[in-house]
């Protein structure tokens, strides 16, 4: 795969500034661009069963997302007989078997798939498409057969938002430390390549690019090592915000001023940002897309037109001016603020918040 695709970079840059269509204030129901697909042939009356093959819940992002999905399903109790969720525990092989079992089980009227790996799940999804409507979200598959593929703007967009913010706050020749989760995952690789392009263009030096495995202790140690090396770090760029506060603590513990930082939309980062008055940005890969999956599935079974073959969701970023709106003291530290879940049943307890 090519993680540095100028065309895709350009397209996503445009999408970031595009005005979304759809209901105002409900970004999970909005879409960018005009493509729609017809789904009349999938129309089904009466109560329906939706099946969801989940790649897993191996990180807080997916935990919040799954809660969104379940809560959204609750909104449609009258139409939805049952939501069957099957978890693949991060194993491609298991997810393929799971999908096969769901399809052959014959209970499902529509299938939602959040693939663990793009290429791996392609054949299984293709096979499923022949039997029932399939909706894919988050990571995609290498086939056009699903009714629609739901995703926010994408990795380049994430990298562009964060990279441009940092570049705008730094002088030419300043140092930025890039903290990444792990190599080899397309949505993460594209975030970095986009940001790197922008830094290179702006003459900002990437002093290091390190993988943290989203481990807070490791993150803090890595940053401390960079500080101990005596290198001046003006900004920290991250491809995901789970460990943003750990990185900031390294500066605290060393008695240094905070760097410019790009995190994500997690509560702990937003709170720190607010209380310490950081120069920061919180780009997002919004978890509300998990709601969209249910909405899309039901729309398809209603025979309504849905955005497709790609349903591109807006991908907002949290900035200084809107920060206060997203800080919610009730929510747990790693809650993703752009969950679009504030109005959903069970908020905030379902997401681990305090009443």
């Amino acid at each position, binding site marked *: 795969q090519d993680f540095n695709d100028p065309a895709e970079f350009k397209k996503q840059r445009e999408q970031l500034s595009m005005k979304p269509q759809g209901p105002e204030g409900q970004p999970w129901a909005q879409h960018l661009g005009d493509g729609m697909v017809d789904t009349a042939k999938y129309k089904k009356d009466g109560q329906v069963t939706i099946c969801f093959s989940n790649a*897993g*819940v191996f990180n807080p992002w997916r935990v919040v997302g799954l809660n969104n999905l379940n809560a959204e399903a609750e909104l449609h109790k009258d139409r939805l007989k049952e939501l069957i969720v099957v978890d693949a525990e991060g*194993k*491609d092989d298991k997810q393929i078997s799971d999908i096969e*079992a769901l399809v052959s089980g014959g209970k499902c009227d529509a299938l939602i798939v959040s693939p663990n790996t793009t*290429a791996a799940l392609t054949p299984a999804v293709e096979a499923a498409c022949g039997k029932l409507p399939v909706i894919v979200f988050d990571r995609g598959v290498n086939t056009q057969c699903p009714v629609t593929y739901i995703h926010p703007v994408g990795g380049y967009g994430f990298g562009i938002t964060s990279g441009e913010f940092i570049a705008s706050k730094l002088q030419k020749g300043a140092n930025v430390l890039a903290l990444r989760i792990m*190599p*080899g995952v397309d949505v993460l690789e594209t975030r970095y390549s986009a940001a790197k392009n922008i830094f290179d263009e702006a003459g900002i030096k990437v002093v290091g690019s390190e993988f943290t495995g989203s481990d807070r202790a490791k993150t803090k140690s890595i940053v401390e090592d960079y500080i101990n090396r005596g290198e001046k770090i003006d900004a920290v760029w991250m491809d995901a915000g789970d460990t943003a506060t750990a990185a900031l603590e390294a500066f605290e513990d060393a008695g240094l001023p905070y760097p410019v930082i790009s995190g994500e939309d997690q509560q702990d980062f937003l709170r720190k940002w607010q209380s310490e008055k950081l120069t920061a940005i919180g780009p997002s890969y919004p978890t509300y897309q998990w709601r969209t999956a249910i909405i899309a599935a039901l729309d398809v079974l209603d025979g309504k037109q849905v955005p497709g073959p790609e349903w591109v969701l807006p991908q907002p970023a949290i900035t200084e001016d809107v920060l206060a709106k997203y800080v919610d003291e009730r929510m747990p530290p790693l809650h993703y603020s752009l969950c679009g879940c504030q109005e959903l049943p069970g908020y905030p307890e379902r997401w681990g918040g305090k009443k």
Partner: protein
Amino acid sequence: MTTDAAKPGPARSGLPISILLAGLSIGFFVVVALATGEVSQLSGQGIVGLLQRMVALGLVSIGQTFVILVGSIDLSVAALISAVAVLASHIMQGDPAMILPAILICLGLCLAVGLVNGALVAYGGINPLIATLGTGLIIQGVLAASFGVLQGAVAREFQVIAYGGLLGVPYSLLLLAVLSLAAGFVLDRTLFGARIYAVGGNPDGARLAGIRTERVTLSAHVVASLFAGASGLYLAARLQSGTPWIGRDGIYDLESIAVTVIGGTILAGGKGGVAGTLAGVLLFASLDAGFNMLGVDAFLKQVLRGAIVIAAVAVHAIRTKEHVA
């Protein structure tokens, strides 16, 4: 050596564990399917789906059984599976003409890894846990570092292994069946098998009996690596292209050890066999499928699996009079 058994008993006591375990697993699956109304899971297609869940873990575990029988252990299989899957897709690049070269190169890699593992353990005298943990780390590191250049996808024709079939039975299941039978045959009926049990059961005794124990240990490691390779190739076919994490995410190292021990092969070596291991794999597959039907929460599933691993081993371990550590 134990002196606990009362009377000189019959030799074949390995069979009951595997049959009992297989029976329990199937029973669980059937009961759950009936209870949740998923009757279609009991159809031919459902059963094939259940068995298909065994293939990847089954292949590694057969190899793991060989090393555990010989008194060693292999923690590097997970990394090797990833390496093979990545390498196979890289070499093929979708080109059917490259299928054979890719397979050969991958098996060559496995051979090399098996030889290194075996040499470290048998000739270097390094504790197998540490030796294979080390080689696993090395493979994993090289793989992750070079993944940027090692991309690709297997040929469509190669995917037939995972998606094609004969009379409704997937080739991959046939492959597992054939390799299991072959492994069982080797262990039970051949010189090599007898030597494995001898070396695992009493390495000093085996040496004194004239067996070149180092070679046997080394060969067992090669077998384990080759089976890991088979598993990696199967996964490549099933997943179209390998990622450096599939082995690790599949936890094939620890799970293959767990199912082997659940199947009645003892960690000290010298006792056990492939049938038990496959029954252990079947147990895991039934749990996967059953938990899906029951809609067990992902985290609770982990809790249950942990408890079941302990319980499944305790069932037959509790009778041992010897001390275990």
